[in-house]
């Protein structure tokens, strides 16, 4: 029963975080792009308080709301010659795995309810000495689950392109298929280095392993252990998400909207929403694997251990809140960096894209893995 309550709270938190990130990132994308290019950005949508002339604009935050309402109310146009079942299924096949990936990502350290509710004895007694890592699904195969769900979205894009009986969609789906398979391989190879070092695929264990210190002063984050892998992983993840500069499957100037050309209204909205949530998911994955997860530098579940050897104990409630906030901040930072990339770089040509994957990133990832394996083997002997 206690487990059920805690898991329900975790699931609610995760879903709320993802949906809020999905909507807020549309606003962040608009505003950041505007500020990067000396513009103001969308700021006309407002909510008027009824019976008054007070218009709430809030820096254009309500444009996301307006978008959502527009998507809901638009005609759900369907082309005549299409595979009905696959056409209706495809957006969900893209959207659902993206949400599910978050289940294995730890968004906080160990939660001890009896310590947290120490002031309320009945609640503390009810929980007893149970401890919960802040993660929905505590599976040992965390990273493998991430890649399994990542592979599912390919099926969704292929389904969408195939079932809408449109040449643009089909071309987009073909591009999406080859691109995502290529870059998923590279994502896996870059992460292999981390697995070799930490000796586990459990994301919570990986995050905990990064709370130590490296060479006496550096936080033992994945970026400092595997700098090349971090760059390659982020590049491959952006390609996996099909955003500029890797947005060939949905290149507007060539393929209209690529594999979702024939989708309209909320079905199309689901594709867009999945893309924005995946930005946050990539941010969460990158933060967990390379940026020390939910911990500040030199921070553990008990408190701070500074490089000099001094230790500060911090109360459990403060630790939990800090870990949640730090994780969200890291996700936001990585998401913002992805948006910076999206508004800075031009799109690849198709042959350049695949050559970049197979002739540049693939050998680099292999070399990185090789060097990592040799170093780890030497250190362990």
């Amino acid at each position, binding site marked *: 029963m206690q487990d059920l309550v805690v898991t329900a709270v975790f699931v609610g938190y995760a879903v709320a975080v993802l949906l809020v990130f999905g909507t807020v990132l549309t606003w962040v994308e608009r505003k950041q792009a505007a*500020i*990067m290019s*000396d*513009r103001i950005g969308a700021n006309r949508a407002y909510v008027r308080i009824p019976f008054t002339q007070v218009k709430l604009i809030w820096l254009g935050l309500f444009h996301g709301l307006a978008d959502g309402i527009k998507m809901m109310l638009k005609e759900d146009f369907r082309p005549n010659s299409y595979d009905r079942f696959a056409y209706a299924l495809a957006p969900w096949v893209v959207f659902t795995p993206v949400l599910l990936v978050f289940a294995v990502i730890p968004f906080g350290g160990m939660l001890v309810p009896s310590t947290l509710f120490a002031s309320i004895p009945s609640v503390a007694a009810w929980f007893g000495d149970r401890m919960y890592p802040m993660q929905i699904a505590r599976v040992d195969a965390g990273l493998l689950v991430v890649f399994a769900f990542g592979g599912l979205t390919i099926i969704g894009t292929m389904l969408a392109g195939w079932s809408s009986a449109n040449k643009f969609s089909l071309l987009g789906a073909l591009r999406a298929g080859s691109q995502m398979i290529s870059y998923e391989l590279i994502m896996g190879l870059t992460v292999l280095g981390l697995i070799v070092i930490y000796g586990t695929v459990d994301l919570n264990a990986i995050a905990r392993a990064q709370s130590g210190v490296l060479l006496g002063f550096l936080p033992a984050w994945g970026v400092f252990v595997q700098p090349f892998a971090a*760059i390659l992983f982020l590049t491959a993840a952006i390609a996996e998400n099909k955003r500029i500069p890797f947005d060939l499957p949905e290149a507007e100037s060539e393929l209209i909207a690529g594999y979702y050309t024939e989708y309209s209204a909320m079905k199309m909205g689901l594709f867009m929403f999945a893309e924005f949530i995946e930005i946050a998911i990539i941010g969460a994955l990158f933060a967990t694997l390379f940026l020390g997860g939910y911990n500040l530098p030199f921070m553990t579940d008990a408190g701070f251990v500074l490089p000099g050897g001094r230790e500060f104990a911090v109360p459990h409630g403060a630790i939990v809140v800090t870990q949640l906030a730090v994780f969200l901040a890291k996700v936001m930072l990585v998401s913002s960096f992805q948006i*910076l990339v999206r*508004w*800075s*770089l031009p799109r690849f040509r198709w042959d350049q894209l695949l050559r970049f994957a197979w002739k540049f990133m693939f050998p680099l990832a292999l070399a990185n893995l090789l060097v990592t394996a040799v170093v780890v083997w030497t250190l362990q002997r």
Partner: protein
Amino acid sequence: MKPYARKQYWNEPTMSWWERAYLFEIVRGLAITGGVFMRNMGRWITFRKGALTTYYPEETRADYARHNRGKHILTQRPDGRPQCIACNLCATVCPARVIEIEAAFDPDDALHPKYPVRFEIDYSRCIFCGLCVEACPEDAIRMVPDAPGLPDAERDHMWWSRDELLHWNPQRDAAKHSPSAPTVAAARSPGAP
């Protein structure tokens, strides 16, 4: 069949190894855009303006170019009456047919007995070509670096009447001395002074 060879152009761009390595130039580009972002964000959060654009209907630019032809004005005689003699040349030449003039007879003014009682421009259709200014034999209509109060939700509100066109800021027109007092009270003030 020969394999496809891309045509070599005379101005083929040559890249140094630095540029061909790609990653460094990517980092440089990201640094530039990120720097612009940080600069503008720093301005916004210190309550300054970090953008080059203006909130148009609320805010008009003060630095229109001198040769900007954004809005029509009707010039005035020293006594404040319009210089226009209602000859309809501008209305005739107008390619968008947005000028409507209604002439009237003024027996008191022996020199200029014909004058416009109505002189209206429909800014919802005006293409700002300036042909009316060229056609005018009396230098009665000019275009100034200003903006008409567009946009508007109603098409009917985008008509500008004779009084509004007369009520421009005479200080801006260096060629003519300003009248002592405008005789025609304006319904609303056209744009920024």
